[in-house]
């Protein structure tokens, strides 16, 4: 009951110097908004990075999909010859995996390497044997992500061209095409070692030129249909099975299901099931960097909010010295008196959160509809559309941080209030 009365007094005191209160609230609201917007941007970045990893990838390996299934030995030992630890009978395993509800589709991939030549010049390549139709489907998965909301969709025409060109078409990285003086329709040769250790050559036709997410990869990047890779290596195994889910959130659950249900002969755990984030070490580094940036910004914002609010509180105690002295003379303890200020800080915090939410909302709407583009991040090849996500799960924590710092500055008035001498304050005019 007393608490409510004291809270009412605090509210009235806030209205007493409404302009000062407003300024303090604006400062803290701006602090809340800054952190909320940063969180929204981080959320967007993580999400974008995650889905881009899944759909396109940042390495010559292409989009990681959500989960990859390998022969368990392939991750432990060096192969003595190509595809020694490849996955056999991939259709059957894929059918098993596809029977899981959360799985959208699966696709086989072969990783191979060798030399590519135009007759005059040979350069080494990192090749990816794929099912072009399925790879195109993975791109469509990206395009279906509503949260990215990009007007500029990712194009799957390269894979469509590869499909059309037939089994001996290839897609070349931009830099590689340049180095080999090749363009769509050019005839080239792929050279590699077969699973038996013999050298094999196949003739291929350039179906198109593609751009990897990272510039450095382009020069050695090559995509061929699965059949081309299989006939070059003389194998019917694949390097891995890529699993694409309906929703990225199900990755952990489905990983477990695959691990539990897909076995080799005699129920031996023959497969390693690797979720996308383990295939993308950079995802964690980027996360760490962002988290550090966020923490620093958080500290700065909290410091500003705290100092601004503390300043307001101290001014308020100075203005109300006589009232404070009177209350103390009556016999109200220092703690009760400063509780009044604590409530004032608390209410300033609440008002700031409310105002900050409005700021954040308006800012997000403006940014998200402005089509504002961010320049390509270091090492990346394309710019991207800036979005601020709602970051709902972060907002309560940011709110807590702001309310805590304003409340703390209210509490700190206790130090000042203790020092106010009753006699001096009564003679104060």
């Amino acid at each position, binding site marked *: 009951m007393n608490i409510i009365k004291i809270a009412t007094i605090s509210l009235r005191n806030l209205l007493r110097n409404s302009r000062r209160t407003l300024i303090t609230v604006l400062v803290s609201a701006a602090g809340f908004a800054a952190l909320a917007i940063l969180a929204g941007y981080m959320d967007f970045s993580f999400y974008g990075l995650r889905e881009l990893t899944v759909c396109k990838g940042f390495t010559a390996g292409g989009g990681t999909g959500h989960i990859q299934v390998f022969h368990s030995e392939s991750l432990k030992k060096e192969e003595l010859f190509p595809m020694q630890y490849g996955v056999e009978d991939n259709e059957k395993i894929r059918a098993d995996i596809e029977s899981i509800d959360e799985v959208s589709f699966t696709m086989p991939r072969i990783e191979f390497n060798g030399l590519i030549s135009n007759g005059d010049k040979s350069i080494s390549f990192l090749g990816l044997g794929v099912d072009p139709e399925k790879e195109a489907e993975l791109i469509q998965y990206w395009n279906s992500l509503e949260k990215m909301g990009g007007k500029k969709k990712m194009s799957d025409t390269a894979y469509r061209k590869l499909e059309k060109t037939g089994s001996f078409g290839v897609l070349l990285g931009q830099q590689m095409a340049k180095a080999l003086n090749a363009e769509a329709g050019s005839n080239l040769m792929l050279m590699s070692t077969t699973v038996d250790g013999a050298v094999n050559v196949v003739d291929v036709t350039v179906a198109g030129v593609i751009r990897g997410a990272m510039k450095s990869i382009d020069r050695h990047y090559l995509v061929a249909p699965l059949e081309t890779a299989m006939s070059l290596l003389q194998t019917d195994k694949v390097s891995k099975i890529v699993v694409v889910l309906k929703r990225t959130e199900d990755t952990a659950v489905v990983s477990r299901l695959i691990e539990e249900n897909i076995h080799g002969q005699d129920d031996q755990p023959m497969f390693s099931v690797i979720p996308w984030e383990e295939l993308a070490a950079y995802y964690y580094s980027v996360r760490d960097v962002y988290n550090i940036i966020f923490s620093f910004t958080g500290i700065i914002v909290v410091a500003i909010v705290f100092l601004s609010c503390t300043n307001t509180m101290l001014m308020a105690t100075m203005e109300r010295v006589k009232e404070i002295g009177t209350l103390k003379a*009556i016999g109200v303890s220092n703690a009760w008196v400063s509780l009044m200020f604590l409530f004032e800080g608390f209410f300033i915090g609440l008002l700031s959160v409310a105002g900050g939410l409005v700021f954040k909302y308006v800012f997000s709407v403006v940014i998200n509809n402005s089509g504002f583009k961010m320049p390509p991040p270091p090492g990346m090849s394309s710019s991207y559309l800036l979005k601020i996500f709602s970051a709902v799960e972060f907002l309560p924590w940011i709110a807590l941080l702001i309310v805590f710092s304003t409340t703390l500055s209210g509490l700190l008035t206790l130090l000042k209030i203790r020092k106010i001498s009753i006699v001096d304050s009564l003679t104060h005019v």
Partner: protein
Amino acid sequence: MKNNIIAELVEVSKYYGTGTGRMVALDCVDLSLAKGEAVVLVGPSGSGKSTLLHLLGCIDKQDKGRVIIDGVDTSAKSLEELASLRLDKIGFVFQSFNLIPVLTAYENVEIPLLFKGLGNSFVKDRVNEVLDSVGLYDRKHHYPRQMSGGQQQRVAIARAIVGNPSLILADEPTANLDSRTGGDILDLLLHLNKNEERSVFVASHDSVVLERIKKVVRILDGKISID
């Protein structure tokens, strides 16, 4: 005899400043106040009236001597203990009323009771009763700025007596009021304490006060003499 005394100063001295600049505000003062007694403290400006009241009210510390309130020696008490002693035993009335501007008359009067752990309905009844006795029941929702000086001082008196203290200390309670209103205020103070064992100690050089209170304590340069 002893338990008839509500407040007592024993060889109390109070100094301001130190060294050569030291100034004696109270000089070895002995004074005792009986329960139910009304006393006026008179003396020229700067003679030490307020200082004496502050010591009696336990809001300041003497440099020498002892201050005894209702049989309790306050010298060794902590600040918290003194605060709760004030809450229970002492009511203050100030020259400039000292009401809390953001609170209504009712809420101002309520303050001392809020910190005593009393029941809601008891508090409500008591505040209304006291407001009624100072004649401001119909003004209870008014804020200080909506009231005249005399009305504000009535609210302050209500606040001082609401907790049923044994000692009311008033420092120049009429100085900010015209003489008629001042007279009314003093009548009120005395009336409210006539039949209760409540002592009233008023510092003043206002003739309005001197006319009404028989027992006079004079103070000059920190020394007192009793008529």
